[in-house]
């Protein structure tokens, strides 16, 4: 693997925002997640839970509700009173529209997908018609006394249930009037709360309304008579979210204590048709409030203040017990937040609303393997750049990804219209050189760029189509790497050989020779043999690929939990060999080391690893973000008595 001096950077004080809403789309098996800072992320659950799309947020847009409608259309609503539709191709906001009801607390699309309901601060429920290009206000329902915090459609689309403070209303869609008003008990088990907030409702096709409230209750109501059927007290704190499966045989609730409870409809006895809802398994994967839950056919998805997105597969629904059946906990974005200037030893950190520039510290001391060297010069925080809207050329205004060439003379910009711009940088100004137009028919924006060190080649990849390689010299498309089923997570072009290395979300790595327009021998060999099963079972995508300036056979790459150097000259590991070999002790004889050595050299010393790259031949920089540091910056969780303390 070689010996390196490592800059272990822990001053990147990145704290992801808490998750506010999740919305699962059954058709495309995608999950939309909105965070408290207004960020919306889209995860592709079929592509190894890869975060493939990302809409940056804004301070003024606190999202409170998120829903999919008409298949692929994503809407969000927030406390600024606007309904926003997102353009999933161009990765931009399509339009926003004021609902004129004050802050919006809840939103639900009708089962047919043609109508959209929003619940507002002023107690009004507003119905919107979803047209192909825009949404259109249709009518108001009977106004209620207090804010509408939750909404749910009956699967037939004739009624809705709306949760407010202290009561649940059932509306008839045709007349727009409240059919029933079901009052919720404020007091339960002797605990009296000032108000009982209905955080979530779910309307089942048999007319049952399930409500979750701030008193910790999950209640079942009969909407035909407006009566309470059953109460489950599940928590001492608020129950904040509910999601029902499509089959209506199970649902999930999330509590402010961080617990997620699963309820299932089971038959009372095996030979009777009578069924009852029972609370089955509790899951404690969160430390803070579970603000939102979703129920995919095979998994329970939850997110909350502690910023983790947890995907808990349901074992009974999983066909094969493979690695997909394992619990996933997604904390960090699946993209690079850090870029590094190798020559000047600078690190640029990207936050949601600003950028930080740091100079790495340095040391004069030397030591042996494993030593921690004292710093002679501390790391410097050089500057902080805040977002500022100023006059920008049109092509830069909606850039998805930008990249400098190695010699800093050119800037490559991927715009959200699917085109790529090349700008020449001059002293204090720049000049637009060329625009590579999007391929005919697609408007998909490119979100990953790679430039060859000699500046001749530019590789760009979108979320679904293949990787395009452009010749910067001749300003034309050179070739297209054949499309692969899984999205690209990282791209890089090797120096000298101009081999394009592509990492996909299913952990596959390809090496494509740009001059030869074909996959390299090594890439073919590894595809033929297949990757080690442990390699394929890693659950975070590779976010960065680098190369060793002196050893062309080495490829450096990392994900959140490991750093790997692939030595193409060594034999590939097969399933029998140990993939994660610890570093062999130095006194071991070379023969044994050579016999056990294989191409993948993996180090798990640094985790969670957000960035790692070579500064020069013997120096690495590793940016870590320990989870404890993130938790320390979160608000304190609800205190619970722990037995034995």
């Amino acid at each position, binding site marked *: 693997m070689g010996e390196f001096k490592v800059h272990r950077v822990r001053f990147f004080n990145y704290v992801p925002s808490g998750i506010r809403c999740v919305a699962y789309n059954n058709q495309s098996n995608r999950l939309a997640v909105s965070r408290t800072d207004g960020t919306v992320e889209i995860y592709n659950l079929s592509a190894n839970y890869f975060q493939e799309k990302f809409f940056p947020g804004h301070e003024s847009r606190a999202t409170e509700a998120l829903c999919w409608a008409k298949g692929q259309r994503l809407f969000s609503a927030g406390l600024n009173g606007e309904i926003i539709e997102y353009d999933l191709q161009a990765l931009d906001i399509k339009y926003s529209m004021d609902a004129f009801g004050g802050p919006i607390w809840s939103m639900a699309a009708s089962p047919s997908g043609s109508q959209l309901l929003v619940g507002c601060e002023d107690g009004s429920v507003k119905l919107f018609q979803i047209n192909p290009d825009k949404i259109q206000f249709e009518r108001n329902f009977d106004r209620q006394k207090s804010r509408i915090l939750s909404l749910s459609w009956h699967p037939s689309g004739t009624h809705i249930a709306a949760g407010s403070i202290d009561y649940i209303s059932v509306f008839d869609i045709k007349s727009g009037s409240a059919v029933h008003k079901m009052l919720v008990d404020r007091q339960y088990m002797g605990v009296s709360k000032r108000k009982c907030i209905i955080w979530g409702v779910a309307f089942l096709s048999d007319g049952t309304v399930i409500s979750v409230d701030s008193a910790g209750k999950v209640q079942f109501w009969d909407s035909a008579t407006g009566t309470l059927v059953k109460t489950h*007290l*599940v928590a001492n704190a608020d129950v904040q979210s509910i999601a029902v499966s499509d089959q209506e045989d199970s649902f999930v609730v999330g509590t402010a204590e961080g617990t997620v409870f699963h309820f299932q409809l*089971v038959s*009372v006895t095996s030979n009777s048709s009578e069924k*009852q809802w*029972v609370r*089955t*398994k509790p899951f404690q994967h969160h430390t803070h409030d579970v603000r939102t839950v979703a129920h995919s056919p095979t998994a329970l998805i939850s997110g909350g203040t502690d910023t983790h997105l947890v995907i808990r597969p349901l074992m*009974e629904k999983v066909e094969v017990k493979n690695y997909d059946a394992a619990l996933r906990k997604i904390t960090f974005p699946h993209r690079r937040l850090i870029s590094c200037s190798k020559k000047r030893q600078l690190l640029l950190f990207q936050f949601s609303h600003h950028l930080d520039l740091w100079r790495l510290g340095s040391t004069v001391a030397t030591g042996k393997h494993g030593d921690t060297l004292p710093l002679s010069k501390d790391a410097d925080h050089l500057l902080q750049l805040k977002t500022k809207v100023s006059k920008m050329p049109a092509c830069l205004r909606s850039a998805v990804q930008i990249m400098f060439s190695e010699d800093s003379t050119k800037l490559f910009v991927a715009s959200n219209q699917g085109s790529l711009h090349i700008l020449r940088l001059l002293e204090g100004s720049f000049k637009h050189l060329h625009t590579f137009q999007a391929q005919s028919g697609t408007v998909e924006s490119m979100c990953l760029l790679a430039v060859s060190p000699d500046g001749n080649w530019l590789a760009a990849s979108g979320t679904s189509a293949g990787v395009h390689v452009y010749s910067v010299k001749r300003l034309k498309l050179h070739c297209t790497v054949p499309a692969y089923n899984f999205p690209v997570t990282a791209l890089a072009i090797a120096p000298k050989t101009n081999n394009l290395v592509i990492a996909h979300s299913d952990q596959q790595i390809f090496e494509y020779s740009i001059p030869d327009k074909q996959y390299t021998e090594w890439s073919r060999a590894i595809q033929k043999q297949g990757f080690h099963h442990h390699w394929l079972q890693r659950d975070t995508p590779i976010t960065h690929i680098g190369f060793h300036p002196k050893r062309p056979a080495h490829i450096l790459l990392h994900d959140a939990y490991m750093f790997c150097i692939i030595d193409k000259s060594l034999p590939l590991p097969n399933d029998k060999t140990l993939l994660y070999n610890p570093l062999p002790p130095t006194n071991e004889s070379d023969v044994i080391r050579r016999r056990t050595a294989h191409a993948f050299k993996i180090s798990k010393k640094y985790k969670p690893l957000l960035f790692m790259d070579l500064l020069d031949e013997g120096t690495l920089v590793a940016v870590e973000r320990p989870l404890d540091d993130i938790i320390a910056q979160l608000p304190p969780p609800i205190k619970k008595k722990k037995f034995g303390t």
Partner: protein
Amino acid sequence: MEAAAARVVRCGGSELSLRRAVFSADSRYLLCVSGDFVKVYSTATEECVHVLQGHRDLVTGIQLNPNNHLQLYSCSFDGTIKLWDYLDGILIKTFTVGHKLHALFTHARAEDSVFVTINKEKPDVFQLVSVPLPRTPRQDAEAGEPRLVLDCISPSPKCVAFGGQGDYVAAVRDFYLSVYFFRKKATSRFTLSSSENRKHAKNNFTCVACHPKEDCIATGHKDGKIRLWRGFDDERKYTYTCLHWHHDLVMDLAFSATGSSLLSGGRESVLVEWRDAAEKTKEFLPRLGATIEHIAVAPAGDLLCTSHADNKIIVIGRNLEACAVIQGLVRDSSVLTGLMVDPRTKALVLNGKPGHLQFYSLQSDKQLYNLDIVQQEYINDCGLVQIELTKAAFGCFGAWLATVEQRQEKEGELELQMKLWAYNKKTQGFLLNTKVSAPHEDRVTALCFRSADKSDVPTLVTASRDGRFKVWVLADDSDIYRKAEGWTCDFVGSYHKYQATNCCFSEDGSLLAVSFEETVTIWESDTWELRCTFCQRAGRVRHLCFGRLTCSKYLLGATESGTLCCWNLLSCALEWSTKLGVSVMEPDPRSEHVAAVARSSGGSDLFVFKPSEPRPLYVQRSICSEEVRWGVFVPRDVPEALASEALQWLNRSQFYFLTASQSLLTFSSKSPEEKLTPTSKQLLAEESLPATPFYFLLGRHRQQRGEQADGAADGERVQLPTTEGVPAVSELLHTPAHVLPSAAFLCSLFINSLLLATEAPSAEETPEDAEMEEEGERDSSEEEDAAPEQAQQAGLPDGGDGGDEAEALQQQLSKCAEKELRKLRRVDYSWVAVP
């Protein structure tokens, strides 16, 4: 001689909490296993009503006959299943299975067959089999061929449960739950993770229970979790819920009769009721005293009971209030005090619960009471060194009790305390009089009171390993505030710094013998002067006792190296000695006999001898296979006259001994027989009446009535008024309430009817005779209607007749009252018109 040999019999004290207790269908009786017997207790009075005797080995399971709830099945290690009529204590049938039976289960669906747990080949592989029971009129029958239901199960009956509808049976073992479906004839198995890591390491199943109405299985686990399994008919779609309150393993689980709540218990000695099987709605019954081993629920749903590790059964009402306690002999792991007899109650006294002394009645096989000696909260935590009660002795005819407790951590300092308790006649119990902390510097090895006349000062001697013996006397401890007396040290004796190993007073209290390792020293008890020493150089003296009555001039000593010596105190010389490895030596307080138990290769042997002659009177080889730890002679209330010469020693006292495995055994010259007393039988007949509110008003009198009937001879008994069967009252009760006159009007009449009619004027009787006869017939026919029903319920062959007889008697006696009412009926109907 062979015929005259005394039999070794178990005398109660056997474990009541070995298996779940069973309630009768009407919750009046509680049935539980007790060694080789099954005991029938009344839930209301806590009394043992019957002992079902017949099995020849440990009874391992009892279940009510699902087809007739007045019958009981029991199974035993002797390989038989017996069917009993538990109300009468009659054995109905015996089915021989042939295997050692470990547990018994019945179910209404499985007609004519029961389920038992057996192990066939390997010692650890148990099988649940169904055994068909043939319908034969014969009393003894061979059971049918067992059919395998489930293999590889746990031998404990807690680990097997039948579904409420009888559709399935669930069994747990180690880390898996197996469910066998009778209809599908298929087994599903659900396995929990058993990896070594901290989270799953204690996932072991400990017990299982099935919901009576729904398809729901509750399992208890070693980490204290309770899992509720549902949807287990599909091996993929099964699901479970966790309930977690217990911090130690869940010992037993039971659903209430309707299934609305789940009961669980464990080492915390807290009964937890989970209402609606929900985590947040639970109720507790704490401080039950000892680990809950079993929980049983009455089929009627009104009672439940918990069996505890300290051989106790607590009957608990539905509102979680303990209403009866059935306490057997507490088996402590180490009986350090040995066996003693309380001179007042003749109860056996030994270590009970930790830090307690228990008084156990040998006659009624029941614990009389517990005396808390240590008076500290017992903390149930393994690895904690507890205070142990090591020595106790009674003195001055039960007026004083001395106890010694000690606690020693490894390499820690010894904490020693001696307490002296005075008997208080007012409270009928022992009160702490003197507490002596650190009476000695090392362990106390012996403790004995001087058995002296009442005039003498009570004297206690303690011997210790610190090389001293101390004499304690009762002295005046009064001050200006109160009059009191307390114990103080009077004399400290030692002999060449040897460890004092034992001490003993002669019968008249004039001499004290203290053994110092190999030497026995004799002290004058008036002056505490050393009189003489005996040394045999045959090892440390372990047991020491003076002869009694005619043999009071002899002193017996048994050494560790296996020599039994007898010294003559008059000649100060060794009278005789023999090689005998004595483990227990006990003198009989009522005769000259001394019983010695010696360990030999075939078990333990008993020798009974008189100190005056070196030849034993009676020898019985291998009285039990294990070591005998303690023995005691308990004086008989009425001396028996046993004809046999060899059994003369059993005439005045009975010898009880405790083995290493805590079984209390004795010698009996009688053959085993039914000890059912007639009173208990009668008690039973009366108790089988339904307990309606009116029963409490009227039924009591019926009982007294019965006593009166058969106890007509003893005239001094006060005749109490009888109300039941009195027509006046029955009229009152049968008339609809809306046509009754005001209570004020009826009151005097009612009171009158309760008055006794000693001299019934016969002259007035005659004119109404015909009518009365008719009335009487009607009444009796009504009664007769009811009587067969009762008889059926009780299953008593003679129940009906007895009832009728009693009825007839009551008819006669209440004629006067009846007449009163009839008079009233004829005369006064004006109240009907009165608004």
